[in-house]
């Protein structure tokens, strides 16, 4: 099967993301890459847990003092929803409905951007309300590094999906770009899974002290 071939909804194959050899390689390689990313975040989590509430003096704020449920709950729900919308996008990709796929990807991007905006607001809040800055304590360094790595992944994912949408906006789906969309959505899910752990380990466990 040639990647450049033109397709219709009738001829569009099942699992378009794995039809060519290049696509199969990307599929395998990306899962392995996510394995490496898992270890990367595991290291960040381990460090965070070791340094949680480790501050130089008692006038520094601890986890239980700074986290607030409403804001974190909102960011969590926004990011989880964005994972769902990217599933819708992939559903339409598999059914060769290009416009619907683009629509749902667009919604995903909007949700992702709102997540980032809220996260920036949150960090800003911590810095100004609690003087909880990157350099103030080991706890703060570990917190901002873990959540910051996640945030950087979100930002990269947003740029990736946007680039794909702009590049392929006019030419529709083929077996060359279908795997690209699929991998971007896989990446997006991974970011979401990491956030579930951040929500639990950093925020929920932080609030109970």
């Amino acid at each position, binding site marked *: 099967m040639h990647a450049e071939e033109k397709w219709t909804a009738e001829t569009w194959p099942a699992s378009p993301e794995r039809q060519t050899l290049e696509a*199969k390689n990307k599929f395998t*390689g990306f899962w392995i*890459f996510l394995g*490496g990313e898992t270890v990367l975040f595991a290291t960040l989590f381990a*460090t965070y847990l070791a*340094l949680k509430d480790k501050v*130089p003096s008692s006038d520094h704020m601890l986890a239980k003092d700074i986290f607030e449920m409403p804001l974190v709950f909102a960011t969590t729900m926004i990011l989880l929803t964005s994972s769902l919308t990217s599933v819708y996008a992939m559903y339409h990709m598999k059914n060769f409905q290009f416009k619907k796929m683009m629509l749902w990807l667009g919604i995903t991007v909007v949700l992702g951007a709102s997540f980032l905006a809220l996260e920036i607001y949150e960090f800003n809040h911590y810095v100004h309300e609690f003087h909880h800055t990157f350099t103030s304590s080991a706890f703060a*360094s570990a917190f901002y590094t873990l959540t910051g790595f996640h945030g950087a992944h979100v930002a990269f994912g947003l740029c990736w999906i946007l680039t794909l949408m702009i590049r392929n906006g006019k030419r529709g789906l083929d077996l060359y770009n279908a795997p690209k969309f699929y991998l971007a959505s896989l990446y997006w899910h991974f970011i979401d899974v990491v956030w579930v752990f951040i929500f639990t380990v950093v925020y929920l466990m932080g609030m109970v002290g």
Partner: protein
Amino acid sequence: MSSYAQKQGVGAFLWDYLTTVDHKKIAHLYFIAGALFFVIGGLEAMMIRIQLMEPNNDFVSAGLFNEIITMHGTTMIFLAATPLLFAFMNAIVPLQIGARDVAFPFVNSLGFWLFLFGGIFLNLSWFLGGAPDAGWTSYASLSLESPGHGIDFYTLGLQISGFGTLMSGINFLVTIINMRAPGMTFMRMPLFTWTTFVASTLIVFAFTPLAVGLFFLTFDRLFGANFFDVAGGGNTIIYEHIFWIFGHPEVYILVLPAFGIFSEIFSTFSRKRLFGYSSMVFATVLIGFFGFMVWAHHMFTTGLGPIANAIFAVATMAIAVPTGIKIFNWLFTMWGGSVTFTTPMLYAVAFIPSFVMGGVTGVMQAAAPLDYQLHDSYFIVAHFHYVIVGGVVLALLAGTHFYWPKMFGTMLNEKLGKVTFWLFLIGFHLTFFIQHFLGLMGMPRRVFTFLPNQGWEAANLISTIGAFLMAVAVIILVINVIVTVVKNERVGNDPWEDGRTLEWAIASPPPYYNFKQTPLVRGLDPYWIEKMEGKKNLTPAEPLGDIHMPNSSFTPFMISLGLFIAAFGAMYQYDMKNDDVFANPAAIAVFIIGLAITFGSMMFRSAKDDHGYHIHKEELIDDLDKGGKA
């Protein structure tokens, strides 16, 4: 189009290598760059030995000595051994599994350029205010206090080159999983391919913690973070854990492919199939698995407590079991075979006792109470040089002789090769055997000099003499290479005449598309099977058809260059005198420009469709002599 067609002039030749995505040419690049860093690391080793030749020597100052030992270790591990192994993996693994290229030719090239730019960045420290000086482990408390930018060259340079290594690891994994020829089942893969597979898995899971550890160190030193700064609530032991969670598997990342090269050499020159093939595969996977369970044996004296020490001691000793399986399999491969002692085979035979000695001292150190005595003494230096030189470097030298014809199409001189071998082997044992006793007599490692009348003079002098023998051996190898290149006597497909695996069935060097027709693999050692049936060529698995090839690209170079530039920005934005972050606007601009080049190149790559090109059947038919005879 075909990169071979445009081979005229130096400029075109250079451009060809700068843009190549061909695994065989990337292997050449890795080989040359790795050899260059090997020489640099070797010169640093010579300076260490000259300084320690006699008591109270002042050949180098104490501070410079620290920089030299740090750069010797770092260069040898990250910039010499790893890329030289990658050279052989790139040159041989796709051929061994009957593939036309790796899974991601573009990423393959990106991996090389990242490694090279990272290596250059690290070594530029010599000229820009001093090299890193906190040892190759760069333990946090010490490295946080190191003045100057040396440690920053270390963290940022290794970060960049580590990205490259990680990508290459993923690339080899996917290549081996997806690109095997029909009939090449997992349990028919040659041992070098198997060890590459396991080592690549270790890379994916070990280099990511290293990346995080280096980020933490960078943040602490350049961005005011407090991960390892006890005054800010940090914990310096975290760095030790992260470093060794990477560092121990790294040893296996190096030594497993070395085992693979030796396995190929033993069976080739014993004219027998590898004894206990499946137990060999099992042992390789088991070593890879255990490799992640033992990191704390580097930290017995840190104070983790008797229970942690006991667990890690037992796990460490367990590694001796699969390693022992391998040793016996190699011995039994030679048993009853018709052995020819070519240069590669000499290295292989010498490897067994040398490496076993490194293994035995390893088990000694695994006993935690004894390790309290041995820790940070020359005994440790002797141990890891027996493992790394006796295992990895002997394999690299053996592989250089063994695979030279397949990589470059000529044969290294056997006589000079044997001279190199004997000089190197004798020099190696002379240098490091005596260091065991220096360690037992109490000489600590990493000291820049020692006092007379402690009974250490003679041993240190002998050690230095051995180092000179190794240096002479390497010089003779270089002469051998030059003579061979100048003579340029081309060899055929199977210059050792006993080749067993697919790479020996095609031309040396192979045509840029490797196999004209993908071969059908009918068992372990497929080329040997065909030869035993009186056939000269492999059985093809497909009719002659068009071959799809990837396009060359300059983008990997640009992506790597961008990170190289950004690293300077990240380093110089920090004002060391006033302890001030983001103090230098010019450096911030450089940082942003560098990242813009990198991400811009990535977007360029994303925007430009690259479908590759096809070699047509008709062109292949004219190409009868080339190794396309599958």
